[in-house]
C-alpha cells in the first residue's frame, strides 16, 4: 500500500497554520545532508529545485519529531500543533 493511502486512513484535524517552520537560509548555507528528505516516516519533506527550498506538507505530520532530532543545523523549528489539532490516533 502506498504511503499516501495509509495516511488517508488516519484521523487528522488539520490546523491551517503549519507547526513546522523551515529557515531556508540555514538549509542552503549549512546543510549538506538533507536528512529531512529521507527520515520522515510520512515522507512529507521535498526539495523544490527551482526555488532551492525544502518544503514540508504539515497536514500529514504524525508528530513523531524525527525531523526535529535529525536536523542538526537547526533549520527546523517545530512545535506541537495547537490543542485539538493535528493527528488523532484512534488506536495508538
Amino acid at each position, binding site marked *: 500500500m502506498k504511503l499516501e493511502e495509509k495516511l488517508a486512513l488516519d484521523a487528522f484535524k488539520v490546523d491551517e497554520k503549519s507547526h513546522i517552520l523551515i529557515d531556508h537560509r540555514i538549509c542552503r548555507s549549512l546543510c549538506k545532508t538533507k536528512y529531512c528528505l529521507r527520515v520522515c516516516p510520512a515522507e512529507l519533506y521535498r526539495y523544490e529545485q527551482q526555488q532551492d527550498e525544502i518544503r514540508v506538507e504539515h497536514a500529514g505530520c504524525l508528530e513523531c519529531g524525527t525531523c526535529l532530532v535529525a536536523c542538526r543545523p537547526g533549520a527546523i523549528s517545530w512545535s506541537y500543533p495547537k490543542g485539538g489539532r493535528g493527528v488523532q490516533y*484512534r488506536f495508538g
Partner: protein
Amino acid sequence: MEELDLVVVGAGVSGLTAAYYAAKAGLGVLVLERGDVAGSKNLSGGRLYLGPLRGLMDELLEGLCLERKVMLEKLSVMGKQGSASLSVRQDFFGQPQYESHTVLRASLDSHLSERVAQAGGFVVPQKRVDSLLREGARVVGIRSDGEEIRAKVVILAEGVLGLLSRELGVKAPPSPKEAATALKEVIQLPSEIIQSRFGVGEGQGVAHLFVGSLTSGVAGGGFLYTNRESLSLGLVLRLEHLMESQLQPHELLESFKAREEIARLLEGGQLVEYGAHMIPEARRLAPQSLVGDGYLVVGDAAGFSLNMGLTVRGMDMAMASGFFASRAVIQASQSNDFSASSLASYLQMLRGSFVMKDLERFAPLERVLSRKRIYNEYPEIFCQMLGGLFQVGPGPKEGYLRSLRKALGRGPGMPVLLRDLWDMRRL
C-alpha cells in the same frame, strides 16, 4: 481560579498515574492534554509489563483496558534469505507477578483518564501547554492558549521530545544517538483468526520480536503484537544509523511486511491506522535534572525506557515514575515545601526501585546493542549456521562442528565476537 496543587502536562500513562494518586490523596489536580482526548496523541509498540508494578499500584491496575495477556514469546533472527525463530511458552507467564499485556493507547489512556476523574482530578483535553510560568528558577504554573494557570507544583509528563523541560536545563530533545523512530501499523483481523493463526486461546496473545536484516544494519528491529481484534506491527530504527544509511523508514516497513514470514501472518488483515513515534533509547539524563523548584519530570520525558534485547520496556517505567512523583508531591504538600530538595524524594524512590536498578544494570547491554554488526553480520551468520545444521544435501553430510566453524568464519572474526560477549559479562 484558586491555585491548584498540581498541574500535569500530558495525559499519557505516566502523567495519568501521577494524577490519579495525587487526586486520590485529596490534592487539587489538573491534567492538560493537547489531543482530542487522552491517548489520541500517544503511540506505543503495545506491550505493558504489569509485574514490576505489582505491590506499587495494585488498585490502579484493576480493570485496566488491556488487549491480550501475552502467553507466547517469540524471537526471530532474520537473514537475507531465511530466518531462525525461538518460541517460548511458560505457565508462569500468566501469573499476576509476571503477567504482561498487549495494549492500544487510545483505549488504555482514556480509561486511565476516567479513573483520574473518578478520583476527583480534572483532565482537560485539546489544551496544549505553550510554556512554563516561572519566578526565577521556580516553576509556578503553565501557560496555555494565552491563559496562565498557577500551581504549587508541575509534573512534566510531556513525552520523549521534552520541548518544555528543555527550558529547565533538561538535555532535550534527545540526540540521534539517544532516540529511535518507531513506525507502526494497526491491522484488523477477527479474533478467531488471531487465535488459530498464532496458536493462542481466547484473551491470550503473542509478542513477537524480529532482529536482523529487516533493518539493514540499523540498530533496532521489528515487532508484532496481537491485540483482541487487531495486530500491531512495526519497526524501531535508531535514528543515528538511519541517518547514516540511505534508507527510508516506510520502505523498510514495506519490505518487512513483504517477507514471507510476515506476509502470511497478515493475510486477510485490514490496515486501519499508520503512526510514528520516537522512543528514548540508551538515553540517560542526569537524575538531578529531573527535579527542581516546583517541578518533576516523568516517563519518556525523563528517558525512562529500556531495550533489553529480549524485552522492550517503557510504559511500566513510565507508570512507576508517575507513581513515585505523586508520592513526592503528596509528601511535599504535607510540609507545604515544593522546593527541589523537598521533591528530591522522587529521585530516592526511583533509585530504590526497579526503574533505576534495571536502567543501570542493563546499560552495558544497551551499549552493545548499539553496534551495527548485531543487526547485519551476526543474524546472517546465525541463520546460515542453523540452516547448515538442518540441511541434508547430495553426497556425505559435513560434520556439525565443521559447519559451525565455517559459518563463524564468515563473520567479523572470533576476537570481535568474544569482545561483544565479554562486554555483556555482568548482565
